[in-house]
């Protein structure tokens, strides 16, 4: 019976062999939940709409013939479905979320409220521009914050996430090179880089040349400089880098690439370590995306949406894509077309329809106004302080490959301390789930074996950090002492135990299909 285990053998309760399985398969407040396609049925809807007669359809003979196959559910069922699903998720709002590189900081509710003001949430991208002056002013104000905080003269607002910002930046570089009549193809990317960096370089039509890391977790500046040449379009560095370290030779590398006629693209995913303290413009950066969904707290929303505005140096600014935002006596104006360009502008094209992630812009500006310049600086300092506190508190029991120096906003560990214990990085991370924590980022960056990258962010209290440290210390000590029970097959206390990813990839089931239709209950 019950829909909860349709199509699959139910094993509710099996996880706790000493216990009686429940009849329902549910367990207290933890409900199993079937797919909407298994729950729905004909003749029900969660939206009341009148039946309409259309005297003369104008569909050009292309009227749909077959039903779509969508399930029918009433509103109460829909609400319950998603509430139950939500309860299977971990979230910042329920606990520390130390995913390195992801900046899972507090998402203020004020920002949600502001983004929903009808004057922002309910305006159309192509309304007459005189009816959206407030929206344009908001974007302009956000641009001011972004350029001021980064010390860069310009910013392209349309990119929809970090990777999209990378693409925008690399295309700007491409356009600048073309304007110089050069067709440089090679882009230097450190081995520690996030996957989007090489992927983006490839999409933009560049070839990727990998730069190794030094033993202390930095980009090998010497190797990088050695690779520079007349075919190098750009270097793509992350700073602070993905090992959580500030690149001490950053300025030197910037100068070198400039000298070699290339540009410096900086991955700004880790801006949260330095916002308000360091201006990338002062480091020689030519282009850098800013993940508003990291540093400026627009919610990650289970995977998106984000926004990735790209700040640009004076050399690159003219090549920023359309649309451009201008201000003159008549107010704000979007320049959407080549014909209309201001002096000197040579946009490389367009990144997407319309003018960017307005919903995220509102949230980010709300965050900035709330923090103020002082608060942003304090937030960065607290983020760095918290990561160093974790590093200092754990480095004796876990292994920190670059553990001596201070780190930036994330603390990197490797799996040396687990050597010979039989416990893997994965086991260790999954055991954290049982302890009520989301695991840290695992196996990234690739330059470190069994990497565990912990980014606490500035949103945790010291008490919360202390509890986290205590749990991780005890876990590490247990593992080393050969007490591996809690690691084997962990998690045991989550809504699911480890999932079979191989099976998922081998014979992919990527959608529900009618053949899985449930038998009628009872």
């Amino acid at each position, binding site marked *: 019976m019950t829909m909860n*285990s349709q199509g*699959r053998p139910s094993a509710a309760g099996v996880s706790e062999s000493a216990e009686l399985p429940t009849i329902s398969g549910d367990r207290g407040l933890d409900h199993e939940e079937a*797919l909407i396609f298994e729950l*729905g049925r*004909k003749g029900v809807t*969660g*939206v009341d709409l009148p039946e309409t007669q*259309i005297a003369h359809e104008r*569909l050009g003979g*292309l009227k*749909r013939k077959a039903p779509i196959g*969508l*399930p*029918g559910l009433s509103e109460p069922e829909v*609400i319950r479905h998603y509430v139950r*699903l939500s309860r*299977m*998720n*971990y979230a910042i*709002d329920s606990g520390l979320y130390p*995913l390195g590189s992801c900046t899972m900081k507090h998402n203020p509710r004020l920002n949600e409220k*502001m983004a929903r003001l009808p*004057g922002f*949430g309910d305006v159309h991208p*192509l*309304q007459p521009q005189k*009816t959206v002056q407030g929206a344009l002013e908001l974007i302009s104000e956000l641009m001011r914050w972004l350029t001021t905080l980064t*010390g860069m003269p310009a910013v392209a607002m349309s990119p929809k996430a970090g990777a999209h910002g990378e693409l925008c930046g690399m295309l700007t570089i*491409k356009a600048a090179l073309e304007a110089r009549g050069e067709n440089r193809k090679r882009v230097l990317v450190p081995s520690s880089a*996030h996957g989007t960096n*090489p*992927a983006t370089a490839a*999409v*933009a039509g560049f070839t990727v040349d990998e730069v190794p890391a030094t033993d202390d977790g930095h980009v090998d500046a010497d190797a990088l400089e050695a690779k520079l040449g007349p075919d190098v379009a750009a270097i793509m560095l992350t700073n602070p880098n993905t090992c959580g370290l500030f690149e001490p030779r950053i300025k030197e590398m910037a100068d070198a690439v400039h000298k070699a006629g290339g540009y410096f693209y900086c991955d700004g995913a880790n801006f949260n370590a330095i916002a308000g303290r360091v*201006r990338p413009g002062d480091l020689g950066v030519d282009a850098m995306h800013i993940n508003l969904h990291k540093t400026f707290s627009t919610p990650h929303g*289970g*995977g998106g*949406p984000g926004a990735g505005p790209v700040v640009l140096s004076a050399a690159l600014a003219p090549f920023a894509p359309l649309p451009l935002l201008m201000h003159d006596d008549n107010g704000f104006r979007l320049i959407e077309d080549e014909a209309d360009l201001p002096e000197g502008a040579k946009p490389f*094209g367009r990144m997407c*329809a319309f003018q960017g*992630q307005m919903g*995220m812009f509102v949230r980010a500006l709300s965050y900035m*106004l*709330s*923090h103020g*310049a*002082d*608060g942003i600086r*304090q937030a960065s300092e607290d983020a760095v*302080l918290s990561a*160093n506190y974790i590093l200092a508190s754990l480095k004796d029991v876990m292994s920190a490959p670059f553990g001596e*120096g*201070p780190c*930036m906003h994330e603390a990197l560990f490797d799996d040396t301390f687990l050597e010979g214990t039989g416990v893997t990085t994965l086991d260790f991370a999954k055991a954290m789930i049982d302890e009520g924590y989301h695991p840290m980022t695992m196996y*990234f960056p690739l330059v470190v074996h069994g990497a565990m990258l912990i980014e606490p962010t*500035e949103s945790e*209290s010291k008490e919360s950090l202390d509890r986290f440290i205590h749990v991780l210390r005890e876990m590490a000590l247990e593992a080393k002492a050969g007490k591996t029970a809690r690691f084997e097959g962990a998690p045991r206390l989550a809504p699911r135990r480890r999932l079979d990813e191989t099976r*998922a990839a081998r014979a992919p089931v*990527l959608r*529900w299909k009618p053949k899985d239709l449930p038998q009628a209950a009872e």
Partner: protein
Amino acid sequence: MRYLPLTTDDRATMLAKIGAHDIDVLFRDVPKAAVFPRSVFDLPDTQGELEVDRALSRLAAKNVSAGSAPFFCGAGAYKHHVPSAVDHLIQRSEFLTSYTPYQPEIAQGTLQYLFEFQTQVALLTGMDVANASLYDGSTATLEGVLMAQRITRRPKAILSGGLHPHYAETVETVAGLSGTIVRTPVTPGKAEDIAALIDDQTSCVVVQSPDVFGMIRDLRPIAEAAHAKGALLIAVVTEIVSLGLLESPGAQGADIVAAEGQSIGVGLNFGGPYVGLFATREKFLRQMPGRLAGETVDAEGRRGYVLTLSTREQHIRREKATSNICTNSGLCCLAFTIHLSLLGEEGFTRLARINHARACALAETLTTVKGVSLVTPNFFNEFTIALPRDAASVADELADKGIIAGVRASRLLPHDAAVKNMLIVAATETNTDADIKDFATALAEVLS
């Protein structure tokens, strides 16, 4: 500062534990020249909620919101009523403040809705499989072209002149780097002859239906012509509600569908965030961009979901990935899937019929105004009218009368003198009879 939990005491204790006498020690690797004092910023300090709320509300109040006026803009973004349950549910902390579901054991909520979302998108488009979203319709179209170039190993892509110009420009910007992009000339309200342009270098033909002028395009002959030459048909849909009433692209032979899902659940948002829908045939699965949620079982045999086939993706494949996308439109997928779950078959098809009925009523009413003619004989909820004079000034004068009358074609096609007098007008379930009447009355006044 209300968002920062550390106290001054905490900071001191923590620094002591670290063994740093000052926070600056932790920033020691920053070149001296790049450390700048607080004072260089010309930016304000911390403000309370009340002040921020006031400042932003003041900006918001300077815009005319769609719900506050008779409103007829479309051209890639549509004003629809989103049930209040949607916004309530997407704000559940566990949805809003969670990351990409990389730890499936504690992310089944996200993974299951993505699996359901993928199924809904596949059903709507009539395709085999759909991914867990791309940024928006325009980037989905671009990804479709790149994918077609990969599959066919051919450089050329033909873009129908009815494709939303922003979409076409987005494709040109990136896919044009390594390939050739051909944009067919367009006469609003007419289907261009694409078949003739397809050759053995053609990777794909991209056709939007309803097109940017609202015209419904018959994809079947184009699919046939493309397939005959070994090219793929990429169908683009900017108004997903149309699929409640129109034959799906899949049924018309499309190989890839790229669509904008904004109409369902998401809202206008001045252009973003939106949600790119992307679906294709099973055989092209491994060339697909973007995340995929798949079904599997856990160690106890219970059904569960994971992100799968990630060997296509940048974090594994790096420069050989099918796309560079990472963050996608997660929460907008959720809004989309909740809204569509609420609608169901009955609600969604009714909604489509109402939209068409409203547009028919609007078209009939507007064409009674002297000098106004209908350009697009067939349409779903959007059509183009020709005015006796420059549409830009007409739309402007209508805005002054409180009517947001639609999108002038010249905003999207500034170089096409033929569309100068054309206005693209959309009607949805949110437009009342009174709205339609007000529009017609005002239009008559402006034109008289």
